C-alpha cells in the first residue's frame, strides 16, 4: 500500500515573472533535498511573453522594442514549448513535484496536466480535448484554451500550465502562439455560457482538478503567501 501523498498549495495572486522563476528555483532545490513535499503555485502574471529553451523568437511578431509600449515584458526560459503569453485573468499553475515518486516521465506528466485542464473545463460545460501530436495543450475544437510548458530536472518539475479564463486575447495577436500558426486562442469566457464566479473560486476549482488528476490524498492550503513571496534575493 503506497504512503499518502500530500500537496501543498500556495495561492500567490499576481506575481512578476522573474520573481516567480526565483521562487520556483528555491522550491525545486528544496523539493530535491526533501525539505518540502510536492508543492503547487497558483498565480497570475502581469502581461508577459515567454520563450522556451529553443528560443523561437521568430514567433514574436513585433519588435522587442515595442513590448513596453503594449505594457508587456519578454523572458527567455529553460522550459519546453514555444512562445506564449501570460497575463491577467489567465490561471497559472506551477507544480513543483517529484515525478520519480510516482514513476512518471514527461509524457505521463504532461498528459495528466492536460487531463486536469480538460476536467476543469468540463465543470463549465466546455468540451475540451488534448492536443494532437506536436500540439500539446488543451483545445476546444481548433481553438487553444490551455497551454503547457515544463521543465524537469532530476525528476522535479517546474513551470507548468496556463489556462485562459478571460485574458485580453489581443495580446496573442503579436505572437505565433506555441509556434502553431492558423489556430486561434480562446478562453473560458468565450467558450461557456455559464456565469463565471469570482476568479478566486475558479483558481481553487482548477487546483482541485489538478490534485484529483494526480491522485493526491491531502491538499494543504498554505495561508501566508508572504512566506515565499518575500524571497531573500528580491530582484
Amino acid at each position, binding site marked *: 500500500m503506497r504512503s499518502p501523498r500530500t500537496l501543498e498549495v500556495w495561492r500567490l495572486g499576481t506575481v512578476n515573472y522573474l520573481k516567480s522563476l526565483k521562487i520556483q528555483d528555491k522550491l525545486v532545490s528544496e523539493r530535491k533535498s526533501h525539505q518540502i513535499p510536492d508543492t503547487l503555485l497558483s498565480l497570475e502574471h502581469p502581461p508577459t511573453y515567454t520563450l522556451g529553451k529553443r528560443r523561437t523568437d521568430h514567433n514574436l511578431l513585433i519588435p522587442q522594442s515595442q513590448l513596453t509600449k503594449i505594457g508587456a515584458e519578454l523572458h527567455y526560459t529553460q522550459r519546453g514549448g514555444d512562445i506564449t503569453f501570460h497575463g491577467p485573468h489567465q490561471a497559472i499553475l506551477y507544480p513543483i513535484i517529484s515525478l520519480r515518486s*510516482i*514513476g*512518471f*516521465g514527461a*509524457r505521463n*506528466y*504532461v498528459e495528466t496536466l492536460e487531463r486536469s485542464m480538460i476536467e476543469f473545463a468540463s465543470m463549465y460545460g466546455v468540451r475540451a480535448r488534448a492536443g494532437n*501530436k506536436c500540439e500539446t495543450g488543451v483545445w476546444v475544437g481548433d481553438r487553444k484554451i490551455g497551454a503547457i*510548458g515544463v521543465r524537469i530536472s*532530476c525528476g522535479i518539475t517546474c513551470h507548468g500550465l496556463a489556462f485562459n479564463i478571460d485574458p485580453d486575447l489581443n495580446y496573442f495577436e503579436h505572437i505565433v502562439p506555441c509556434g502553431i500558426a492558423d489556430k486561434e486562442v480562446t478562453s473560458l469566457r468565450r467558450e461557456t455560457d455559464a456565469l463565471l464566479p469570482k476568479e478566486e473560486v475558479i483558481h481553487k476549482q482548477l487546483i482541485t482538478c489538478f490534485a484529483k488528476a494526480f491522485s493526491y490524498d491531502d491538499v494543504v492550503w498554505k495561508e501566508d503567501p508572504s512566506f515565499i513571496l518575500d524571497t531573500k534575493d528580491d530582484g
Partner: protein
Amino acid sequence: MALRLLWASRVASHLRISVAQRGFASAVLKDLKYADSHEWVKIEGNKATFGITDHAQDHLGDVVYVELPELGHSVSQGKSFGAVESVKATSDINSPVSGTVVEVNKELTESPGLVNSSPYEQGWIVKVELSDAGEAEKLMDSDKYSKFCEEEDAKH
C-alpha cells in the same frame, strides 16, 4: 509503434529483455551500464559513449530537440550536461560518468527522433574520455536496471 516492437524483438534475440508491468517490453542491453536517471553507457578502455535508455525515451514521448554539450566540456557523474525536449517538456539528461566530451552526435540536431527510434545505436548522444574509470562500479548492470525500471513503473 509496430516498428518499435519489431526493433525491440530484433534486439531481444541478442539481449535480455525486461517486461514492464503493462506488458510493454522496454529493451535493456546486456553489455551496457545504467544510471538511475535512465542513461546508458558503453565503456571501451578509457572512452565511453552514452545516451538515454529505451525506458527513458518511451516515457519522454517524441523528442523534438536535443541540447548537446560543447566539445571539451567537462561532465560529472550524476550531474546534468544537456537536455531533451519532448511534449513541451525539457528534461535534463545526466552524465552517467565523469570525463571530457570528445564527440557529440550531430545527427541529433537534424533528427532528434533518433533518440526514440534507436536509443542505443543511432541515438547515442555523447562520447567522453573518462576521468575516473572506477566510477562505473556505481552504475547498474542490465539485470539491476531491468528490475529498477519494473519497480518504477509499478509506482503508478
